[in-house]
């Protein structure tokens, strides 16, 4: 159970970083909504997973948080990508592409042959 969770956490972190890179500072609610939206509502984000992931990213120094005011005029905590986070994102993206490419070769041997 632990290892599956980690994979999920890892990809969620990547999604968060990517989302923040695209749309700029965002709060937890917005992030969840955005990720669901981009996945075509195929993913549903569990806050019990999202917030620990945000905490971990913050502890790693990839993101920073500060209080701000949302579009709907609510006080909310906004997460923002840091320079380190941007590098982290680039590296993770590269790794991800590589991993998926390798996996793709494994999973479609028929086409290859």
């Amino acid at each position, binding site marked *: 159970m632990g290892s599956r969770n980690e994979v999920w956490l890892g990809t969620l972190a990547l999604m968060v970083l990517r989302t923040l890179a695209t749309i700029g500072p965002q*709060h*937890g609610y917005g992030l969840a909504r955005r990720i669901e939206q981009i996945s075509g509502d195929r993913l549903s984000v569990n806050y019990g997973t999202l917030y*620990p992931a945000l905490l*971990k990213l913050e*502890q790693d120094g990839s993101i920073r948080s500060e209080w701000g005011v949302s579009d709907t005029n*609510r006080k909310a905590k906004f997460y923002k990508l840091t320079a380190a986070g941007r590098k982290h994102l680039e590296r993770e993206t590269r790794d991800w592409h590589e991993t998926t490419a390798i996996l793709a070769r494994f999973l479609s041997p028929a086409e290859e042959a």
Partner: protein
Amino acid sequence: MRTLRGWGKRLRAWIADGSRDRDLGSELESLVQMHMDEYLGAGMNREEARRLALIAVGGVEQVRQAVRSGRGFPWLEGLARDLKYAICTLLRSPGFSLVAIGIMAIGIGASVALFTVVRSVLLRPLPFSHPDDLVALYSRGDLSKTDSENGYVASGDFYDWQKSQHGYEQMAIWRWSGFNMSGAGGELPEFLNAGTCSWNLFATLGAGPALGRLFTRDDDHAGAGRTVILSWSFFERRFNGDPAILGKTIRLNGLNYTIIGVLPARFQFPHPLIQLWVPWQIGEGRNAVSSHYIHIAHVVARLKASASPAAALEEISAVQYVLYTRLRGSGEMEQGVIGTPLLEDLVGDAKKPLCVLLAAVACLLLIACLNLSNLLVARSAARRREMAIRSALGGGRFSLIRQQLTESVLICLSGGALGLLLAVGATEWLIKHWTELPRGYDVHPDGLAIGFALAITLLAGVLAAAPPAISSTSAAILGALQEGSRGIGGSLGRASLRKWLLTAEVALTVVLLIAAGLLFKSFLRLRTVDLGCTTKNVLSLNYFLRGDQYSKPEQIVSFDTQLLERVRHLPGVQAAGLTNVVPGGGYYGNYEISIHEHPAQATGEHHFVAYRTADPGYFSAIGIPILRGRFFSDDERLENDKFVIVNQELVQEYFPSEDPIGKHLRAQWRTTQGENYEIIGVVANTKYELGKPVAPMMWFPILGGIPGNSGDSVLVVRSQNDVTPLAMPIQRLITSLDTNLPVKNVLTMEQIVGQSTANSSFSATLVLSFAGFSLVLAAIGLYGVLAYLVTQRTVEIGIRMALGARREWVLRLVLIDGLRPALLGLGIGIVLSLGVTRLIGSLLYGTSPLDASVFLSVIATLLISATGACLLPAWRAARIDPMCALRAE
């Protein structure tokens, strides 16, 4: 790097937990608000919107928990929780906690103190460079005997060793000596313990001077200028640590010595009592320096880095054997050489008692652990329900065990902290009272001792908690919930664990008690040994007549007779006499003798007899009875001194079937050629040392006045009543005769006896107190188990009584229940003791390791204590009112 930073943040997060929590709280609240906004926008009412928002968020508390466990250190928090819980539990039953902490404090404190002493004395290397290369060399009298004792080395032999080819880098010779230091500038004269040593002793040990220089080859020959090196403590004490003293002279035995150097404070070889060092060939007589027959010295050697210890020793031994074959006809020669590591040589005698004490203390600590374990089992039984419920609610077995361990470790840590304080005090006390402990000056608790304390504390904590923790969380735990509230059967397993712990505890206690009993009996034996003379109201004091002022026999005799005359006239003095050593004052020395009237001895056969000196009044003053013949007369002095008095033992050994009176002993008393001394009297045996067998002895007239031989004097004064008030007037008399003559060892005979039993009384008292403490612990343990059992069985007993069981029967039932583990432990303990006591056999005097009276009294003591401890719960059980017992549920 990122992980490291993450840890830093975690740590900060953990520290700032409270504010972080509040921050998270408002963040989650805003999240819920945003979801609500969504539902409100869809036209729902507030209540419904909030409900749906909470569902969407997935429970604020759950999210909060998820975040928390990612933050900080969950295991640390778990530990903190355990700790908090353990503290609460301990505070809830302060009586239990205090007893437990007290027991552990004593156990740990005693162990740490003993460990500190053992480490400092036996284990810590000597404070010299490469101390492992240092050996003490001794002569070995008879090569055919493998267990022959270490003998002193003759200086002549030493110089031949030095000249030969051998695997030692350097070797040095030394011996204890002493000097009278004249008073100067209004200071009192003083007798100084000193050492004489070959010039290279310090280089051999690898020590340098703190001030000035050390001896060189040029200082160490008969014609050299007299030089002296001071110990740091003497330098500080007598000269106020003033470096200007270098190059000045002091008067020792009436001669001027130039101070050339001061040793560093840490140089305490071989004993801190040594105040100064004088070169070997200056301090010792010309005769002693070259002789192969005068065995008086210690030799220290440093092994070459490349040499093997055995081969080096072999080389020296070969040299010695050649000397032996060449010289054995003309005097006593040693056949070989023994090497002992220097550390062992310095601490050898203390090793055994120290190990015994350490073992005793380890037993004590183990008993303390067992006792704590026992108390914890009782508590874990009481908390069985709690454990079961927590386990049912999902508490993992590991976390349950961990929690119990925390509690026990907490007890041990508190006990350990207290014990450490105790240990500091105890160590100080040990050093102060253990007068003959070698390297005592080196003993102080240090980091390692604290580390040791911590280690045994944790070990004790785990050890004590393991049996109860594992048993109380075993798989059958849920049975506790199913068990009726009466809990009759369920706790029997727990009780049997406690009984086993008790059995072990009693067994160890028995071993300790027996060892203590033997040591104590041996001490009592020693204490009541008859020295062979009066010890009541007898005072003795030493003075040494040395130097120019006492270089002629007339001078010595004149001083002695004047002193005796005046002392005998002091009011309160009943009798006074002179000797060189009193009974119980040590072996002193011996001379080779032959009997003029007997045929000559075979070559290489030598007889040695311990010698003493006496004036005509000595024997009656100290109360040694004469058996035959007479004492010395007043005119047997100076040249007219060819008379000797012997003891009964000498007669038995050398004149078994003859009248010794009128026979002649030949000895080198006055000259190195030897003279004949007529035996004029036989006195009763006296002991030279408590606990040692009687040796043949002979007394020469002290009034012969031979410088060197007659110069060592002990004045013995007997009084009608308390003799101590006479000490001052006698010392004043001596000062009035010679203002520069120091007096040493002003002691009553009772004090001398006390000193020689001090060590044995010390270890006996310590082990006895350990044993007593263990007995109390075992009794408490026994009482606790039984009291608990009775409470557990109240209902059962009630039913039995309701069905007609008599009170005596109940009393017997409980008593037997309690006494069974005690008896089993007693049996095991006695079997163990049979083996263990043999190990302390060499420490015992006049007591067999299997001494029946000790074993019997230990058995009686244990039975009485055990019965006493069992009686109260048994009596309580017998008084149970069946009606109350049955209603109680």
